[in-house]
């Protein structure tokens, strides 16, 4: 397995692609998001699995995004996501609101190769009213608690064009290791293409190691791997490095305004490239 460069990986994601991203507590590919900003991506349709965080906000701020399908966009302790909020108000993006288990369920339907899956809840929520793609049926199975019959929602399978996340490591065969963050496996299974950034590439085969295998995703699903050290920061990466609250707080303050965001980008997204080119 030969890793590609981060910039080549970003270049391989076409404008307009639907791109599934895990949130800040689950291996977000922040370095790749910055590379997408540098390449000037446009019209991306982001999918939050099941919510969206820092990477989504910076992509929106940089004008890369047309639509977000997610259950929430948040910077966690640092508050509302400022560029998401501004872009939504200004009509520059659309949002398809969902609820966390609905995002998981739609991806699991794709993972299992079925056209839909049911989910309880949802009925009576205005989310449902705004999702014509979610259908209510009468369940054909008897539910003892509901002798009069049960209404239930069917959610369609969601097949992202691209899934991207930041794994701890890849092995010589292109398998990647995500540990307990198994939702990364679900999006890998559900998506047409899977792009993974990693801290490092190691020798060997995770699938041959009983201790590493349960947290691995087979190379069968993975199109390309790129090395991006500290590629999830400011988010945490399992026990490799912690969440950088100060950096997210600084971002949240800066990104309150368009100008502040542009300055933040100059310092944190483009500065690296200038240095690398020098």
């Amino acid at each position, binding site marked *: 397995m030969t890793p590609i460069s981060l910039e080549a990986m970003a270049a391989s994601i076409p404008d307009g692609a639907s791109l599934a991203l895990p949130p800040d507590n689950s291996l977000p590919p922040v370095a790749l998001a910055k590379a997408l900003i540098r390449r000037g991506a446009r019209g991306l349709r982001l999918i939050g699995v099941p919510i969206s965080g820092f990477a989504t906000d910076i992509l929106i701020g940089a004008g890369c995004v047309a639509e977000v399908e997610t259950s929430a966009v948040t910077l966690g302790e640092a508050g509302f996501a400022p560029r*998401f909020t501004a872009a939504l108000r200004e009509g520059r993006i659309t949002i398809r609101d969902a609820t966390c288990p609905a995002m998981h369920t739609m991806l699991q339907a794709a993972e299992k190769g079925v056209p839909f899956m049911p989910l309880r809840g949802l009925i*009576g929520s205005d989310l449902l009213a705004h999702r014509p793609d979610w259908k209510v049926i009468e369940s054909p199975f008897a539910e003892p608690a509901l002798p009069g019959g049960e209404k239930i929602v069917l959610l369609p399978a969601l097949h992202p064009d691209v899934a991207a996340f930041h794994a701890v490591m890849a092995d010589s065969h292109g398998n990647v290791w995500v540990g307990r963050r198994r939702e990364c496996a679900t999006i890998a299974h559900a998506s047409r293409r899977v792009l993974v950034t990693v801290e490092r590439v190691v020798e060997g085969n995770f699938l041959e190691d009983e201790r590493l295998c349960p947290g691995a995703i087979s190379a069968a699903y993975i199109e390309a791997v790129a090395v991006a050290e500290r590629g999830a920061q400011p988010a945490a990466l399992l026990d490799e490095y912690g969440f950088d609250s100060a950096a997210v707080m600084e971002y949240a303050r800066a990104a309150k305004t368009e100008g502040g965001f542009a300055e933040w980008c100059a310092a944190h997204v483009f500065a690296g490239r200038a240095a690398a080119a020098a």
Partner: protein
Amino acid sequence: MSVPFRPEELLATAIARLIRAVPTRHIAVGAASPIPAAACWLCVKQGDPIRLSLLHKRSGNPFTEGSRELFDLTGQGRVDLFFLGGGEIDGQANLNLIGTGAWPGMTVRFPGSFGSAFMYYMAGRTVLFREEHSPRVLVERVAHISAPGVSAPGVFRRGHAQALVTGRCVFRFHPERARFSLASVHPGESVESVRAMTGFAFDVEGEVPETPAPTQAELALLRGPVCDEMRETYPEFCARVFGRKVAA
């Protein structure tokens, strides 16, 4: 003889009493504020045999199937109690985590519904928690329903709101009539002061007691072993409320 306490400590002990009011084996704590987490730890440290699944605990996160496991666990009926809040909460216990103005929140946009449109139906019960108690938050009718307080016949629903805890009072929820009643008012508040700051109508049955102050034993647990458990996940809260320095 009463010991001085902080409002957060009052809220945590009030929530702990709601937890103990109903047999509870397993509580999941999501992205909610640290106060519900403190209440859960207080019950555990008081010796209640309760399992806590803390979604945002970084080391020892209880979920090994990724973030869907919380929802699956709840779907299975294994979560007796969950906590939810809301940008708006109305008198039928409807929650709005979407925003105000035209859909999808063109006046004020909140972050989004998270898991509410599932958890509120499928957890054994829900304690609603929102510190801000104002007519802006507690409204007659939410602008958009992320998750409804009650459900029509034919919709599978395992649980409802047990109570709504705010910075001013504790409301109990009655799903059969889809209304709140005032259960207790915090020190310094009255039925009238609560009514003035609440956008929805609620019931008052007889004399409304004051929310009991934390006992000395409760405060000792909160400031000691509960704080110890919470520092990794909520360092700033522990520093501010319990006066514990953030570890270097």
